[in-house]
Structures are given as C-alpha cells and as structure tokens.
C-alpha cells in the first residue's frame, strides 16, 4: 500500500475486495476460552474513484463511512484486499491538534507543525488562516475561551492550508453557523473547479451532497450498496432511510440485529505474545 508513487493512472483510488475488521470486546461473563469475536467494519468493498472526481459518501450511522475515510486516508490499515492510492491523501480533521491552553495564533503553529508544515510554510499561511477564520481579537485569547463554533473555524481554516491530491472530508462542513458553512463549501467548490482535486465528501446533509458531488457512493452495513451518479444514489438512499423509519420498532430492531450478525466473525484466541511476534 504505497501512496507515495504518483503514476499517471486514471484512477485516484482503487480498492479491491477490501475488508476492515474490528475486534469486539467480550461481554461480561463470557468464558475466556471461547475466543474473541470480530466485526466487519467494511466487507469486500471494490471501487474505483477517478482522478478529479467529487464523491459523496452516504450511509446510515455505523455503516462504515468513517472507517472508509480512515482507510482511504491511510491512517488505518486494511485487513484484506488491496488498495492503491495514486497521490497524496489528507483527511481534513477540524478539532484535532488544537491546544486549549494556547492562543489562537500559537495554535496555528501547533496544528501547522502537526500537519507537517515547515516554518516558512506556516509563516506564509498564517495570514490566510487569520483572514479565513474571522476570529478578530479572539486570536490572542487561549482557545479554551473559544466557543465551539470558533474552535472549528480555526481548525478548519488551518486544515485548508493542506494541499494534497485527494481531500477526504468527514462531516467537516457541518460546523459553524450557516454563513461559515457556506464559506467553507465555496472554498471547497473552488478547489473542485479550479484545482481539479479528488474530493471524498462524507455528510448527512443530502442537499449539500447533491449540490457539491458528482458521484455518489452508498455503503450500508459495511458493504458497498451502490456507486453511480449522485442524484440516483441520493434518491435510492433517501428511499431506504424512509423505509427504515417507516418500519415498526420491532421489525427494525430485528433487521438491524440480523445485519449485525452478518458482520460478526468468531475467531481463535490470540495471546499477547503472538500479537507481538506473529
């Protein structure tokens, strides 16, 4: 899974039969010898994303959207299958890396350094960040005094200084007030239209996704349900959600339970030492 080599492949991301497995904790009282249970967070996903495409990822809670974003951004390793990423990918994370004790201005340095910028780059971007975040005099206040919206604004503005080939945005635009969300969306639009970046966009806001993305990707229960033009996928997804909501409570629970069971796997017990050296 080398992401550094940049060939001229048509696709930015190629996944083939990718699975991601999480270990589950034992319920109380279960015997230790039984072996641990695991859970398919993603199961047998194959997809190709074209370079310069804007993909909206849809799915209900717990369907594996965030896991997919972690896998695609190279933070988390896959357990099965192959993954090819052409170009550098970055997950836009808003509130991470901000230190509550330090002022906004210092935090630009902190988060900038965490993201791996050098000194020159941080100096260059500082002005842009200040302008975009619109914090006013709060820039010189410690971040613990910020409102949550202000914090996200600062965090998002710093993240914008990243310039990867593939952007992965997980619920990022749902922060701040409407005005700021609009501003962020405009900025992403600009990236999409002018710089021709590949953008993967995870959001629960269907109108936002419809407006912004070209391709839709719907995952449910860790499996890929559909990938295609955004409007079609959005329609199918919203039909599904409505159907789910219309179900009586018991039936819904049964269905969800079944889905959960499908994703379960029981495997043998591995000791600490086999984990270390195996």
């Amino acid at each position, binding site marked *: 899974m080398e992401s550094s080599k940049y060939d001229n492949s048509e696709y930015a991301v190629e996944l083939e039969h990718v699975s991601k497995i999480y270990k589950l904790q034992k319920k109380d009282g279960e015997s230790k010898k039984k072996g641990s249970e695991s859970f398919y967070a993603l199961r047998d996903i194959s997809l190709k994303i074209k370079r310069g495409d804007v993909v909206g990822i849809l799915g209900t809670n717990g369907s594996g959207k965030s896991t997919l974003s972690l896998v695609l951004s190279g933070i*988390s*390793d896959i357990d099965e299958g192959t993954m090819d990423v052409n170009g550098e990918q970055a997950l836009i994370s808003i509130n*991470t890396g901000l*230190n509550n*004790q*330090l002022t906004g201005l*210092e935090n630009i340095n902190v988060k900038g350094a*965490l*993201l791996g910028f050098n000194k020159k780059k941080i100096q260059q971007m500082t002005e842009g960040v200040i302008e975009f975040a619109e914090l006013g005099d709060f820039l010189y206040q410690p971040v613990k005094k910020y409102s949550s919206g202000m914090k996200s604004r600062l965090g998002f503005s710093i993240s914008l200084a990243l310039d990867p080939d593939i952007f992965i945005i997980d619920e990022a635009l749902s922060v701040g007030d409407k005005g700021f969300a609009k501003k962020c969306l405009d900025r992403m639009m600009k990236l999409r239209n002018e710089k021709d970046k590949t953008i993967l966009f995870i959001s629960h806001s269907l109108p936002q996704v419809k407006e912004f993305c070209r391709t839709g990707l719907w995952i449910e229960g860790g499996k890929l349900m559909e990938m295609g033009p955004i409007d079609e996928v959005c329609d199918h997804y919203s039909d599904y959600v409505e159907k789910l909501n219309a179900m009586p409570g018991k039936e819904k629970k049964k269905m969800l339970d079944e889905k959960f069971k499908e994703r379960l796997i029981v495997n043998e017990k591995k000791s600490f030492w086999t984990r270390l050296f195996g």
Partner: protein
Amino acid sequence: MFTSVKYVLTENFQNLYRIYCIAKYELLADMRDSKFGIFWNFASPAIQVLTYWLIFGIAWKRKPVGDIEYLPWLVVGYAAWWFIQPCIQSGCNAVFSKTSVITKMKFPVSVLPATICAKEFFNHLCMLIIAFVTLLICGHGPNLYWMGLIYYAFCAFAFTEAVSLILSVLTMLWRDVRKLITSLMRMLMYFSPVIWECHFSADVPYHNILNFIMKLNPVYYIVNGYRDSVFYHTGFWEHPALTAYFWVVVICLFTAGCMLMYKFKRKFIDLI
C-alpha cells in the same frame, strides 16, 4: 530489521521541525496552565534534591562520597536522573496521549517518543542550571572536563529515546505497561547511583557479583558519567568496556523499538 531502523530514523530526521514545535508548544501549554509557569520547571527538581539532601545528607549524616561533599555529589547525579526518569515515564504515554491526533490525521507516529525526550531535555537544562549554581556555591569551578556532560547528555537522550520507543508501543498493546513502569522507576532509582553510590562494601556477601550487576544497568553509566565529568576529571574514553557495553545495549534497545514501531505503525488506531 534494517528497513525498520531506517524507517524510524528517516521519519525522525525529516520531521525535526515538527518534533521541535510539538515539544515547544507542549512546554508552553504546561507553563500557561499554572500561574508561575517556568518557575516550576526549576522549583520542582530543586525541592526534590533538597528533600534527599535533608534526609540523607543532614538527618542521616552521610559522609562525603570520596572527597566530594554529599550535596554537590547528589545534585549532579540527580540532574541526570531528572532527565531519565520523566522521559521514560512519559515516554510510555507518548503515543497513547496523542490518540486524538493519530486517529484523525496522517501522522508519523515514530516521532512521538522523540518529542517527549526533547520536551524533557528542556527540563533537564533547567535542572542543570540549578546543579551548576549549587556546584559554584560549593566551590567546584567549571573546567574543560565539564564538556563531557554534552556527551553524557547525548547518551542519556539516546538511551531514553530507545526505551520510550519500545515502551510507547508496548503501552498501546497493553495499557498496564505504564503502571508497571511507574512502579519500577522508583526501584530503578535506588538501584542506580543517584542518591547512593551503588557500591557494596567488602563485608556484604557476594559484593563482587552485586557490584558487577549494578554496572550492567545503563543508567549507572550515565549517572556516573555526569559525575566523572564534573568531579573526577575523567573522560568517557577511560571506561572503554563500559562505554562499549552501554552503546551495545542502546543500539539493541533502539533496534527493538524500531521493529515494534514499524510493525505496529498502522495498527495503533485499532489498539485504542
């Protein structure tokens, strides 16, 4: 094996500015936390040394060590310890405490132990200033042999970096490691020549073997090295066997740490 060592080394050297920045702003955040800020970086080691001096030096009327008074002897040893101990202890938590960062962005995890060491190195410098002042008051003027401190500080840095590489990964696999280490550190202090010479006199049974075992502790080399440079005017080249042993241990530890780090670099997120 070599790929893992190369991987960790390149990642660390490519990210020197990142390491520096993280260490600097973490220190700054610590200082902002309290009203007196940097004062505590000096006060807490000073109070520690004072405690040991009052108990062992005054109350138990310790004789001077060789021809060196107990207080200056203690201060120099404790200065070395004041770097090693917090480094190893917070080194355990190096990766775990940055959970929020490593789960949310692509981050070179292997630099985290180095950030801890860099941060503690600043505290070490504060402590060294205290030690120098004490030495001057006690009448030990500086001389050229004091330059040896730079070498031994580097030794300490290499040793703690290697140990925290290992421990930070083990803590991720097994959270109990940190608690175990916290308890063991106290033991290690008494088995290192920090507050006593770690030398059994001839009337102790098996004293030869015991003294030899004491020397196997890498911390022994560092702490005594600090004292050699300051009081005894001996350079590290005068203990070739111990020097070689120390570096072999450090290189082994570092390699083991690199291998662990390399193996688990992408698994950390699943271990939380």
